[in-house]
């Protein structure tokens, strides 16, 4: 078996976090979640439905883009994924601006569906491929979607985990804090502490993230990677060496 890539470890962590879900939806620009969702379809006894928001060929929707939000509003979607330019220690995510909103230092594409889905989907998995004090901050500059809400605000979901190239955090809703669950092979606690801008809880001994099983890697590289290439050509090229195809 060739060297395991960091992305493959992340995909395996996400695969375990979505276990048992009936319907997994994946938004724009989420190749790692999409890979995990496709794997879950191949590997789980009760294969979940998987819907890729931006890809009509890979979703179950027949009523347009709004059907994802309508379904989520009714509780029909179990898992969704978000990233953020910044993610803070209370689970707030920022997809909009760095700096003052009126005169930002940096601008990102926008909030997408976060300000709604973050409330409506029971299991939100956060992923951030840059684990640094720049991205994982004490407090976000702009709350695109809040990590927790007061008890009177209708909310059936929210963040359950944050997955990065270094580690996997769980999220404790009651304390509005992350808790370090596992550290990926080849990385250590000091590295996590040095590169995380927010305070978090942790057990006395932090276990190592288990390596992806051989069967998972076989399916990922053999079956899922070509599927991903059609949707996330840049990711498939970088991670699996599949060249960007000319348009049909």
């Amino acid at each position, binding site marked *: 078996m060739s060297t395991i890539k960091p992305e493959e470890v992340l995909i395996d962590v996400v695969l375990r976090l979505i276990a048992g879900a009936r319907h997994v939806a994946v938004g*724009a*620009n989420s*190749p790692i979640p999409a890979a995990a969702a496709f794997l879950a379809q191949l590997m789980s006894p009760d294969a979940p439905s998987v819907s890729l*928001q*931006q*890809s*009509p*060929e890979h979703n179950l*929707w*027949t*009523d*347009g*883009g*709004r*059907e994802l*939000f309508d379904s989520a*509003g009714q509780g029909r979607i179990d898992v969704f994924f978000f990233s953020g330019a910044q993610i803070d220690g209370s689970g707030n995510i920022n*997809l*909009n601006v760095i700096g003052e*909103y009126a*005169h*930002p230092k*940096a*601008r*990102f*594409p*926008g*909030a*997408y*569906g*976060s*300000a*709604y*889905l*973050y*409330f*409506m989907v029971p299991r939100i998995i956060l992923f951030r491929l840059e684990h640094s004090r720049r991205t994982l901050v004490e407090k976000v500059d*702009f*709350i*695109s*979607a*809040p990590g927790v*809400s*007061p008890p*009177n*605000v*209708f909310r059936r979901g929210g963040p359950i985990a944050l997955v990065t190239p270094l580690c996997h955090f769980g999220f404790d809703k009651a304390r509005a804090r992350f808790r370090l669950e596992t550290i990926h092979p080849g990385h250590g606690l000091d590295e996590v502490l040095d590169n995380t801008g927010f305070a978090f809880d942790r057990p006395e001994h932090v276990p190592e993230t288990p390596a992806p099983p051989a069967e998972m890697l076989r399916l990922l590289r053999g079956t899922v990677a070509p599927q991903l290439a*059609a949707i*996330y*050509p*840049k*990711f498939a090229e970088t991670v699996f060496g599949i060249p*960007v*195809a*000319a*348009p*049909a």
Partner: protein
Amino acid sequence: MGKIRDLDSTLAAIADGTKLIIPADYAGVAMEATRALIRRGVKRLHLVTLPASSLQAELLIGAGCVATIETSAVGFGELGSAPRFTRAVLAGTVTLKDATCPAIHSALRAAEMGNPFGALRGIVGSDLLTVRPDWRVIDNPFAENDPIVLLPAIRPDVALFHAPLADRDGNIWVGRRRDLFTLAHASAKSVVTVEALHDGDLLADEVMAAATIPAFYIEAVALAPRGAWPLKMGDLYGEDTQHLLDYIRLAQTEEGFRRYLDDQIFRRRAA
């Protein structure tokens, strides 16, 4: 005059200052029409995206056609951010009304129904509420202590989109691209480009009719084969990823962007 026209006459409904709504990449983006609008030099558009956009909003903004954009996101997903959109927001040369996807759906659905506003869960506690003073939080009148957000209806002047088929009467077959129904219903007029013309009546067959926008919503239609290029068109053709990567690289500078416009938009017309 029939509804099937040449591209420039079809786009006559889009004037300077028009409130124009456009779909996301998965639903059918009228890129050939967008290039024609840029060649014509349309100005001061109030652009609304259902709910996000990539190259279409990016080019219109970069070319100076847009005064205001209301959107949930402008970007190229995993390929990168939208350089001219980003630049314009940082420089303050475009007015941005930041939104979230279901808020735009809800505000358009209100317009489809002729209602003054839509209501939506979530959002409470997001800073979007601070930067969108036109969004209001009320207490659900049917419950106790239950805040909920109201969104004013969005009623665009014109919807612009690309679809697979039109018949001679101007009925538009959209397949499962249901967002295009929302655009057509909510907007005063729709202008459409299509891959092909259909001989016969799209409303005559129940299977086709179920996915057909009736002509009474449609102002004009132009034939534009591969009219979504370099974006994808569902099952018909994929996105031209290499073109988009080349664009993103060029558009990092204003000069590179101008070169792209010259090569791909102003010169293509002569070709």
